[in-house]
């Protein structure tokens, strides 16, 4: 049984691997008939040991990756959203036995082909593609997607980017407008580089990083206050 893992576990990065260590202030232990026991012939004291228990899905790694770089719709237009405790799900009750999302007059912003994420349901959380936006009250998804669920849970359905793995000129880059403009600068920099115009390349790379930085600062609201002295001119 792992406890206080933020205090008792450590990691080390070695090449492409994570090395996990457990900090113990005892000797190595073993589990016998469900009871953890100290092994008498082991060293006693502070030490780092290999993980000494099985934990299902115990290691969680959070990271950035090249996640869905090209999508079918601009990031800014993914605004369809419905949130209510009167959303229900049907199993095979739509056209061609498709499964349904039901919410009286609250689904009008969704369109056929949209990718949506469902959160808060009892058994139907996940990502789905709308096969048919039948009406402002019914969305149909592929058969076999849902289990029947009556109203009652506080459920949110919202649109998410739909990746295109073979991007073309009509696809959108999966970035907001500021970062898309940064990408324009990056391409200008690469074009300048290929022509041997290094000063222009440097200029456009500066513009690229400036926009990336602006985009980050747009997420942070920082207020700065300056104390004024007692004899300051006001």
């Amino acid at each position: 049984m792992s406890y206080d893992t933020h205090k008792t576990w450590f990691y080390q990065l070695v090449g492409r691997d994570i090395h996990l260590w457990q900090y113990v202030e005892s000797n190595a232990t073993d589990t016998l008939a469900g009871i953890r026991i100290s092994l008498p012939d082991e060293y006693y004291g502070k030490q780092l040991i290999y993980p000494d228990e099985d934990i299902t899905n115990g290691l969680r790694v959070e990271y950035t990756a090249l996640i869905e770089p090209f999508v079918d719709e601009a990031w800014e237009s993914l605004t369809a959203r419905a949130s209510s405790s009167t959303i229900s799900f049907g199993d095979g009750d739509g056209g061609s036995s498709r499964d349904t999302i039901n919410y009286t007059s609250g689904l009008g912003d969704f369109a056929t082909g949209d990718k949506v994420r469902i959160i808060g349901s009892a058994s139907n959380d996940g990502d789905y593609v709308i096969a048919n936006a039948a009406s402002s009250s019914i969305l149909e998804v592929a058969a076999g997607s849902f289990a029947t669920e009556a109203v009652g849970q506080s459920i949110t359905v919202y649109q998410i980017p739909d990746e295109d793995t073979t991007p073309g000129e009509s696809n959108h880059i999966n970035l907001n407008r500021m970062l898309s403009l940064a990408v324009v600068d990056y391409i200008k920099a690469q074009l300048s580089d290929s022509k041997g115009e290094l000063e222009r390349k440097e200029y456009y790379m500066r513009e690229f990083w400036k926009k990336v930085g602006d985009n980050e600062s747009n997420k942070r609201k920082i207020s700065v206050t300056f104390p004024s002295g007692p004899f300051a001119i006001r």
Partner: protein
Amino acid sequence: MTVLEIMERAGMKETTLAIAWMKDAFHLIQSNVKEHTKSEKSNIIDGIREYPLPADMIALKSISIKDTTDSKYKRIRRLTHSPVVSEDTDPE
């Protein structure tokens, strides 16, 4: 913004190369800021120390271990020095 619009703004005509450079730019952004993140979970096995980093990882954000007493993933710290033990042939 569409691929075509980005190409027109940059004055570029080759779509394939433009898409490749857009991926490079995306990669560079992901490498420096945490614009899109994802997580991956794997089992911890008694006596096993090495676990592979995700193959598609660009930049690491955090590593957490599940606290089974309250079912919460808690961020763990990186060792600043390598332990004296380089390999334990009898970790039990």
